[in-house]
C-alpha cells in the first residue's frame, strides 16, 4: 500500500464538545441512534484532582480490517490509494457480524434500515482535497486527518494506544493519539481509578 490515511486525536485538546459527532451526523443526515463518530468520556481520580478526558473516535481505517475480513457479502473495501475502509450499505444484508469483529464498535446496525453503516472517512470529500467533516468542525484542533506517517511531524505525540482503546495489535488501526498532559501517560501508566472508598468520611469536609 502506498499510503495509509488516518485520524489523529489529541486528548489534551479535546474538550468533549461533540461538535465532530454533530457535524458528521448532521452532514450525512443520520438518525440519532447512529453516530459514526462518537466521543467517549473517561473519568479518573478524585475531586478536586479528578480528570475527565475524552476520546473522539470514528472508523480507525485499520490496516488489517477485521470488519472487511469477516463480512460475508463483501460490503467492505479498502482503498488502495489511501487505505480508507469503505462500507457500502447497499450491499449489506444486516448480519451485524462486523459489529462483532470490529473491536472498536465502529460499524453500527440500524434496525430501521436493516443495515450496518460506518464512517467512510468522508472519502468523497477527501478525494476533493477537503478534510472530513469532523476534522473540519473541531473547535480546538484536537482532531486531524492525514497520512499516518506524517502525524509525527505535526503532532505533540503520536501513539497507537489510548486509555480503554482496544488492543491495536488486533486490527492495526490507523488512528493515532496524543494523551492528555495531566493524568496517565502512554509510556508510564498511572493509576486510573475512582476515589478510594471511604464511605464514612463526612461529606462536607472532603476535598476542599
Amino acid at each position, binding site marked *: 500500500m502506498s499510503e495509509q490515511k488516518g485520524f489523529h486525536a489529541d486528548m*489534551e*485538546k479535546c*474538550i468533549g*464538545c*461533540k*461538535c465532530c*459527532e*454533530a*457535524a458528521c451526523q*448532521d*452532514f*450525512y*443526515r*443520520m*438518525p*440519532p*441512534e447512529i453516530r459514526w463518530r*462518537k466521543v*467517549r*468520556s*473517561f*473519568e*479518573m*481520580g478524585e*475531586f*478536586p484532582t479528578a*480528570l*475527565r478526558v475524552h476520546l473522539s473516535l470514528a472508523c480507525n481505517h485499520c490496516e488489517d480490517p477485521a470488519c472487511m475480513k469477516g463480512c460475508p457479502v463483501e460490503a467492505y473495501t479498502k482503498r488502495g490509494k489511501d487505505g480508507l475502509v469503505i*462500507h*457500502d*450499505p*447497499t450491499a449489506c444484508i444486516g448480519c451485524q457480524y462486523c459489529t462483532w469483529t470490529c473491536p472498536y464498535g465502529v460499524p453500527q446496525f440500524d*434496525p*430501521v*434500515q436493516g*443495515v450496518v*453503516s460506518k464512517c*467512510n472517512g468522508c*472519502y*468523497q470529500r477527501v478525494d476533493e482535497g477537503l478534510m472530513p467533516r469532523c476534522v473540519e468542525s473541531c*473547535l*480546538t*484542533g*484536537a482532531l486531524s486527518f492525514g497520512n499516518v506517517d506524517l502525524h509525527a511531524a505535526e503532532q505533540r505525540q503520536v501513539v497507537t494506544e489510548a486509555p*480503554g482503546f482496544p488492543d491495536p495489535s488486533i486490527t492495526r488501526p490507523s488512528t493515532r493519539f496524543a494523551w492528555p498532559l495531566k493524568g496517565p501517560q502512554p509510556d508510564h501508566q498511572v*493509576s*486510573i*481509578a*475512582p*476515589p*478510594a*472508598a*471511604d*464511605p464514612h*468520611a463526612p*461529606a*462536607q469536609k*472532603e*476535598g*476542599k
Partner: protein
Amino acid sequence: MSAGMDRRSFLKLSLAATATVGMAGEVFATTSGQSYVSGGPAPAHVEPEQWVYSTCGFCGTGCGIEIGVKEGKPVAVRGTKGYPVNDGLLCAKGIYQWQSILASDRGRHPLVRKDGKMVQATWDEALNTMTGKFKDLIAKYGPDSIACYNTGQLAMEEFYVLGKLMRAGIGTANLDGNTRMCMASAVVGHNRSFGTDGPVGAYADIEEADVIMISGSNMAECHPILFGRVVKARAAKGTKVICIDPRMTQVSRIADIYLPIKPGSDVVLLNAMAHVVIAQGLVDRTYVDAHTSGYDALVKHLEKYTPEYAADICGVPAATIVEAALMYAKAERSLSMWVMGINQSINGTQANNAFHNLNLLQGKIGKPGCGSFSITGQPAAMAAREVGGSSTYPGYRAIANAQHREQVAALWGVDPKKLPDKSPAITEILDAAIEGKIKALWVICTNPLMSLPDQNRVRKALEKLELLVVQDAYETADTAQMAHIYLPATMWAEKSGIMVNSERRMNLLKPAVKPPGETRSDFDIIVDVARRMGYGELFPFKNTAEAFEEIKKMTKGRPNDYTGVTYERIEANKGLQWPVKDAASTGTPRLYTDGQFNTPDKKAVLWAMDPVPLPEVPSEKHPFMLNTGRVQEHYHTGTKTRKVPQLNKLVPTAYVELNPRDAERLGIEYGDQVRLTNDRGSITVKAVITAMIAPGSCFVPMHFSEGPVNALTVWAVDKFSKEPNFKQQAVQISKA
C-alpha cells in the same frame, strides 16, 4: 489512591463514565424518513440551494452562521467562514439548530383560552382580547397593573419597540427581561465600576492574553466556541489558564492553576487576590491615580483579606491563592472571563466589581489581551440592555436618571412625566402579582415557569393573573400551557433585525425561511399591539430597518453609538462592534482605551466590598449544596434543543451529578432515580456519579421539565442587580 481500588470498581466507573455519553434507553426511534441505504457509501447528504447570512440563535457568543435553504425550508446551518467570532465553526447546538425551526409544536395560529381550553383564534380576536383587557386594567387599576417579561433572544428592533410601547405607550414600570437571570449583575457591575454598562473587551483578547482567568464558567460546554479559542491559544502560544469553579469542568482540566473554591466564596477570593497584588507592589499607580477613584479606601479595606483569611473561607490553600494572583498580576496581559457562576449569585454584582478592581489596579482595561469580560448568555441580551428592552432606556440611559428620561422623552416626543422612573425586577413583579397588584403579564420568548427560581412560587403568581399572554415560537412551552392567550411568533431565521453578542458585535438576522402558518414576527406583533392600544403615532415603522434608524438617533453620542451602522455594513464587515460613530468606522474592539470612563469624573470606581452571607447553606436536614447550570447539548429550558432528536439522544433527561463518595454513602448507583428535596419542592431525576462534583455538592442542569431543578432554587436576589441566586441552595438527596 490506587491501593484501595480493585479492577472491578475501576471498570464500573469507567463504564459509568462512558455511559454519560449517552444515557438513553435502548428504544430506537428514527426521525429521518430518508434512507441512507440507497445512496451506497455516499449517504444522504443534503446540499442546500442557497446559504443565507445570519446570526446563531443560541448563546451570547454570537457566531456568524449561514442557514442552508432548500425549497424554502431550512436543511442545514454552518458557521460563516471568516466571521471574526467563529470562523466557520459551530457548536453541536448550533449545527443542529435548523431542526428546531421545523419542530412540530411550532405555534401556527393564535390561541385563546375558552372554558379552560386553548382554541384557535384569529389574530384580530386574540389581539383585541389582549389589548381590550389591557385597556380595562389600565382604566381600572392604572398602567402598573400591567407587566411584560421578555427575553434576550429577540432582535434589537423588537426590544426597542417593546420598551417604547411599555414605557412611553402604556407607561408601566413593569418591564423586565430574562436577562435579569443572567446579565443583571454584570450590567450593574459595569455601571458601578465604569459608569455605564457594556463589556470592555473583545474575543480577540483571548489570543492576545498571556493569562486567562476563567471563573464561574463552564465555558467548554456553555460557550464552546470561545473555549475552543482558549484551547487553541494555549496550544499555540502556551497561554496560561486559571480556573475558579467549585465544580470541575474541562476548564479546570486544562487549567494551570485550579481553585476549587467553596460555593459563593468568589468575592473573598478576588479580594484576596487584589490584596496580594497590592501587597506585592504590582499595582500600576500611574494608571490608578489617573483613572480610578477609591484606591486608598480599597487598600485599607483589603488589609484583612490576606490569602490565609481567604484560604479559610474559600477552602483552597493560601499558597495557591498567592500563586494564582501572582500568575495573573505578573503577566503583561491578563484577561478575566466569567459567566453565571459569578453573576447568578447574591454577591454577583460585588464579584463583578471585584474583577474590575483587580484589572483596574493594574490598568488592565482597554488594552489588548487584558480586561474584564463577562460573557453573555443569550444572542441578543446585549441588544436588550442597549436599547431599553428591560431595565434601561435606549442608549444605556438609566431608568432612575431624570436627565436621561428627559432626553428620551424629547426624542420620543412624549411627556417626561409619563416615563417610569423605576424598573422592578421580575421577582418583584411576580411578588406583586401574588399580592394582586399586577393583573396582566405579557411573556415574550421566554419560559419563566421553568427558568425562574422557586417554580411553585412562580406558578402561584402566574395562576393569580387575570391575563397571561405568552408570545412564543412553541405553543407547548411550559409557560404557554398556562396562558390565556398564546401568540405564535416567528423564529430568528424567519425575520430580520440585529443581535448583539458579548463583545458588542452587532450582527444581522435575515429572513431565510418562510415562517409556518400565521406566525408573525415579534416586531409585527408588538407594533400591532401598540396600534390597537392607540399608540400608533409612536410607531411609524413599516419594518425593522426603519425602527433601527430611530434607534440610531437614540444612541447618537451615547456609549453604544450606532450612528455608522447599517444592515448592509454589518453584513459587509461580518459584524460591527459598537460604538460605530460614523460610516467610516469599522467598529471598536475595546472600550476605555484612553482610560476615560463614563462616570461623571471620568474615573473608574474601585469598590471596597464585603460579601453578604449566602441565602442558604447545607444543614443537617438539607445536607447537600445544589448547583444548577447547563449542558452543552441543551439550551435553557430546552424548548428548542429538546426538539432535536440527535441532541436529545445525547442527554435525554434530567439528572443529578453526585460525588462517588456521597453516592456510595447513600447507596445510590449510576442511573438510579433519586429524589432531591427541600422546603420549596422536590424533583426526581437520574443519578450520574462523577468525581467532577465536590463531595457534599450536587449539580442539576436546568433544561428538563420532567425534573425541573428550579422547583428547588431559592428566591433570593443580589441587592444591587436583583439577579437571583441560582447556584447555591441546600437540598436533601435520597434514593427514589
